[in-house]
């Protein structure tokens, strides 16, 4: 049995501790906003926050994050109030197919938490997620816009 804290809730899951966090979030906890894209931490579709830092969950054994504060895309908003990154994503109509966007948003939110006014170079260094639709132009604009908003 593994005890996890996800989006402020405690989950006791009966799972092999070597199971990647991604699959526990999706299949045991039932939150499907976090995506599988490659399974080798290349694409970033599985990005979640572990103690506020962006982590790729597809290769992260669940046994290593016991007791850590895990946040998924479903836990980013505060109640019905979207996180400023989500709000900027809506305003700039960033998503196309949208599949990579949970991970992209989580990476962007972690970047803004660490660097409230990121430069283009900061964005290039921190956002290494793959998007096959090619939404990068809107991603960059939305991150800069979110950086300008309060809270």
């Amino acid at each position, binding site marked *: 049995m593994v005890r996890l804290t996800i989006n402020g809730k405690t989950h006791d899951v009966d799972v092999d501790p070597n199971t990647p966090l991604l699959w526990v979030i999706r299949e045991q906890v039932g939150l499907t906003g976090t995506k599988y*894209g490659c*399974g080798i931490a290349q694409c970033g579709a599985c990005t979640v926050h572990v103690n506020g830092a962006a982590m790729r969950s597809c290769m992260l054994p669940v046994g290593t994050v016991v007791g850590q504060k895990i946040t998924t895309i479903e836990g980013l908003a505060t109640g019905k109030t979207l996180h400023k990154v989500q709000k900027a994503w*809506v305003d700039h109509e960033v998503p196309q197919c949208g*599949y990579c966007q949970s991970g992209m948003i989580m990476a962007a939110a972690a970047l803004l938490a660490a660097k409230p006014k990121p430069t283009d170079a900061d964005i*290039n260094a921190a956002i290494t997620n793959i*998007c096959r639709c*090619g*939404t*990068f132009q809107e991603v960059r604009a939305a991150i800069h816009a979110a950086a300008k908003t309060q809270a």
Partner: protein
Amino acid sequence: MKMNRRNFIVTSAAVTGGLALGFDPFGKQVVRAQDGSPEITAWVVIQPNDRVVIRMARSEMGQGTITGLAQLVAEELECDWNKVTYEYPTPGTSLKRKRVWGDFSTGGSRGIRTSHEYVRQGGAAARVMLVQAAANQWKVPASECVTSNSVITHKPSGRKTTYGKVAEAAAKLEPPKDVKLKDPKEWKVIGKPVKRLDTVDKVNGKQVYGFDLKLPGMLNAAIKDCPVFGGKLKSFDAGRVSGLKGVKKVVPVGDSAVAVVAETWWQAKTALDQLPIQWDEGPNAKVSQESILATLKEGLGASQAFVGNQNGDIKAGLAKATKTVEATYFYPFLNHAPMEPMNATARYTPERCEVWVPTQDGEASFAALLAASGLPADKCDVYKINLGGGFGRRGAFQDYVTQAVQIAKQMPGVPVKLLWTREEDMLHGHYHPIMMAKLTGGLDASGNLVGLHVRLSGQSILAAVRPHIVEQQKGRDPLTFQGLADTGEHAFGYSIPNLLIDHAMRNTHVPPGFWRGVNINQNAVFMECFMDELAQAAGQDELEFRRKNMQGLPRNLGVLNAVAQRIGWGKPAPQGVYRGLAQMKAFNSFVAAAAEISVRDGNKVKVHRIVAATDPGYAVNPAQIERQVSGSFVYGLSALFMQENTVKDGRIVEDNFHTFPSMRIGQMPKVETIIIADGGPIWGGIGEPTICVAAPAVMNAFFKATGKRLRDVPLKNQGIELV
């Protein structure tokens, strides 16, 4: 499966009738949506609270087609755009209703350009019926009523009602026999950058992709198909994994694959990794990249080839040239690699078979389901789910549906979700066709182009995917000549005397497919880089040289001039920055690009800026067109610089994003999109055409920067990096 798809299309086309206005066998009987709201026409359901549900057959995979199509319906319906939502009819329902929603296929950039008329008519007919219903209630002539934002007003009396209030009565009326569509000058919603209908759920994790589907009692399957195309499954040792936690069953799938079904997908995948499997790889295991390339090279000089475009006398033209230029180009196999790997969920009983699937073509999924289940159409249906990317992988090819049904048949009554690993997805694609080209151009003493021979050698998509078309064409694949064709939606963009463009078809065992843009990707590289080579051999400016060879092609010239002007062609570029151009016609749109790049250390390429012009005739949603253009350059330039699938021992070598990389945000150029939409009889496509001009524009700029001509894609094989 291909035969079934074909038969299905023929059969269903034969019963098509009354498509335009949504007449259907239900006649005057009111058809209701699931929530009980009445259907006015097949495209329009109106709820009592005035909410408008627009139903369409095409699929949303990120390209914005659903929003664009809804704009077309809403324009004629005169409804409040803020009350619009959408839903997909099922292919089974469509078939029962004589394909009232038309073609489900969402490929070839056809979503809007081939259905704009009938969806607008569907909206217009619904408006006429709603007005008539209000007029009947008020006992006034319908001609005295006007509509705006879902409100009907009787002008003389000022009485008002809403669509929601008269929807029940309207649904009982006969649809009008014919309706008049608005003049484009009157459009209020079409042509506006209205917000997409599907954004919010994509930022909060709520959007359900096929891969997220949950059904009661559902199990999960992981699959391995023989890594060599055409190979077979020989045996597997289920006993070695059947005791693992969660594992329910190990099943053969067709004659070439094996799947593990378990409680969770991770359990299924883990067990599959441990499953001993024996393959019969067959004769294709001897095929290598080298053997494929040798076949293509032979085709470059072969005496037999299918003609795609010719005029004048190529031999005479080249004979009178004082200077001949010759070059050979190459474009590789490419996997589509959408972010969401292939998946489908199936539930089978002898009485009913259902599939839930992210698909670019619900009817193709339905055909695959019917073939695999063996059940008649009235016992089956497909429920479409929005796609995590398509790019051509999820339309004509429904292998994952076939597999899901084959698995579900071995576990009757249990819904089974099949999800491919990324590795499975990479190794079992339907790849961009591999192609070489040898181009020979002749210049006279004044530098005029007096003859051009383009010899293509490589794979045909249609020979593998639509063999009946190739049969009709006596072995020729007309699609190979996209952007080079003598006429039509992919017509050649130059007026060259003494022209021959032909194709030595050299097929391989690697299955080819329609990859965003399809054959314009390589044809634009071949043709547009070679035009620069010719211009340079003639000692002429690349823009001027093109213009001289574009007589009678005003729209090609229009987009080319637009990008040249915006990029500042002919004026000095910033220090260390070099420019390149390209133009083409594809999917009935005219496209051009101008790129600005710099090169460090001879091999590190920074693409600073691409100006792209697209002339589709009509621009339904300019904001989404901009996103399609800039997004397509991520796809196209990833391929140009860093992607290639190669073959070793009959199988694909690159199995994930570490060996098949994709552009990151730091490598993204600034893209400026110019849209030209001056109307006319023809609507052009958006999702694909513009992708093709980015690569040659960048390659041409690279020559300007370095003096080195690049002719082989991907550029990584020449040590070149995108930075």
